[in-house]
Structures are given as C-alpha cells and as structure tokens.
C-alpha cells in the first residue's frame, strides 16, 4: 500500500522514528488487536491504538455506559450513557481516526466463544475487571499461542505484564488460580483513582505497539507495578513456572473450563 498525503501527515511523527518508519506504520495499519473490556483500561488502550493507526481493533464488552463510568472511561461521554460501551467506544475511536476499523462485539467471553474470537487477532489486550475473564483470556491465549498484554488496576495501584505463551511466563505462572470469590475487592467496592487506568492503559497500548512493531523488550517474564501515591514504578521478575498448570511441562489444563462458578457478576 502507498500512504495518502493525509496519512503521511497523520503518522509523520511515527514515520520519523527510526524504530517505526513507513514500514512500521504499515505494520500497524495491517495489525489486528482485540481489547477485552471497553471500560477503564479498554478506553485509553483503544484510544491510543486508534490514534497510532492500528488498522483493526476488536472490542468485547457486554455493558452499557453508566454515569459512574465517566470519571475514568474516557472514550464514553455524557451523550452515550445507556449505549453499549463497545458502540460508544467505536464511535470515539473511528472519529479520531477513520483509518481504523473497530469491530464491536457486545457480549461476554466464555469458554465456548473465546477461541473463535481471538483467532482473528494478532495481539490480545486484557482490560477486564474480573478474575474469571482474566483466567479465561490467559488460558485461551496460552492454548492458542497468542501474545497477551494484561493490565489491572485498583485504588491507586496498577500492574502490567506481557505474556508470550511458551516463551515467557503466563498469568498462572504468577498466580496459579483465581482468588476465592469475595476475597479481592472490585473497583466497585474499593474505588479507583480516575486517571490510574489512563497510566496503565497507556502502558498496555505501548506494549501492544512494541509487539506489532517488533521493537524493544516486552514485559516478558516481568510484572510492572505502578503506585500513584508514591509516584513509583517497580519491575518485578516473574519466572516461567515449569509446573504451571497451563503452560508448564505437564499441563493439567488442556481445555478451557467453566470460569464463572462461584463468582458474582459485578461489572
């Protein structure tokens, strides 16, 4: 493909970078990224990926926009309250950059549909707000060898990690099984500083862009933890666990399970 004059202007600050250039920008335009969740994390991730010219962005979420979301979910607005989040975010991202095709999937990932959805994408970015989805996405990405950028936030702290299945660690190498229901509070119970998902989402978007461009070092075998109150980042090593139940040498999880058992469906 040849760039149009408008694309040369739009992406000029990328094209100038030696690590991106015209070739890298074409990779971005040809790339397909799936965002799990169109909430606190999905909004900034999608916003920056759309601005960067990632050609296809899939969005999965089954919620509608509520007033209480707007303190942090920056792709939605007062005008889109009541609208499905995937539709609200699709409008925002496509308005920002018409080069981007946003595929809105209003629904919830489960063990029956996830493999068919993620197979169309090069990279998966998890911005979900619950453990069943987090473990489902992890296991599906490991089983289908799909790179996964995973982020999480609560109160004033967030974390990011990048999973390259079978090369680096996976989420179960880090935390083998989900915590029991009710042990870990959700954002709904514990609150979150509105800007925090912006920081973590921007880091997730950065990881996704690096994977597509093949530049730099991904957060493979590492977990990056950000604390807003202390204004500090900590990078912790996460070794691949040879006994990991899904990506280890003798995995016990060889197919997707029912992940929702025992969990309430807090959004």
């Amino acid at each position, binding site marked *: 493909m040849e760039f149009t004059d408008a694309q040369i*202007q739009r992406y000029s600050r990328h094209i100038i970078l030696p690590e991106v*250039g015209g070739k890298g920008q074409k990779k971005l335009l040809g790339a397909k990224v799936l965002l799990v969740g169109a909430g606190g994390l999905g909004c900034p991730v999608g916003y920056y990926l759309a601005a960067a010219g990632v050609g296809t962005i899939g969005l999965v979420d089954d919620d509608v926009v509520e007033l209480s979301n707007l303190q942090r979910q920056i792709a939605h607005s007062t005008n889109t309250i009541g609208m499905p989040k995937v539709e609200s975010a699709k409008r925002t991202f496509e308005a920002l950059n018409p080069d981007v095709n946003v595929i809105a999937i209003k629904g919830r990932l489960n063990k029956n549909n996830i493999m068919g959805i993620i197979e169309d994408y090069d990279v998966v970015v998890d911005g979900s707000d619950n453990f069943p989805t987090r473990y489902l996405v992890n296991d599906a990405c490991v089983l289908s060898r799909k790179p996964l950028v995973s982020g999480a936030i609560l109160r004033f702290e967030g974390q990011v990690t990048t999973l390259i299945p079978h090369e680096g660690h996976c989420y179960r190498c880090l935390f083998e099984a989900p915590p029991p229901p009710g042990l870990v509070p959700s954002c709904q119970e514990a609150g979150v500083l509105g800007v925090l998902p912006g920081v973590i989402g921007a880091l997730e978007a950065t990881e996704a862009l690096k994977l597509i461009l093949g530049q730099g070092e991904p957060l493979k075998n590492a977990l990056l933890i950000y604390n807003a109150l202390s204004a500090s980042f900590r990078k912790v090593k996460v070794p691949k666990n040879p006994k990991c139940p899904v990506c280890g040498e003798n995995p016990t999880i060889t197919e997707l399970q029912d992940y929702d058992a025992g969990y309430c469906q807090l959004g």
Partner: protein
Amino acid sequence: MPQDSNQGKKLDIRGLVCPYTFVKAKLAIEDMEMGGLLEILLDYPEAVHNIPKSMQDHGHKVLKVEQTGIKEWIIVVRKEKD
C-alpha cells in the same frame, strides 16, 4: 513522487516544509535497495540542514548538499541502513 532510475531515485519535495520534507525523504529511502542513491530536490532552507543531519542519524551517508538556485538545493544520500 520519486522517479526511479538505474542509479537510484529522484525526489522533488519543493513546496514542502518540515517535517514533511524529511518524512517524504525517509519514505523514499525506505523503499530503496541498500547502496542506492536518493537525489532530493528541495526549496525549504531549514531542511537543507535538517535532512542531512537526520539521514546521518538514521545511518545513511550524505554524499552531496549543493545549492542549485537562489532558493533551491539538491541533496544526495546513499542508503546504508535498512
């Protein structure tokens, strides 16, 4: 638009200003073979300094910067990095 020849490529970016002068030059050189020569015709004075510097920063060799008119220059660059 660049014109191809056996020795390399000619790029006319008269009328363009920074950063599009370098953006166009960079896109042109990316598509060339290693060792190929890119001849850039330009009329934006700032770019006469900026393009050679940026090309060198990106690993290419600047062979010539020549003023060919009152407000017209030719820069010749050899592609040395992919």
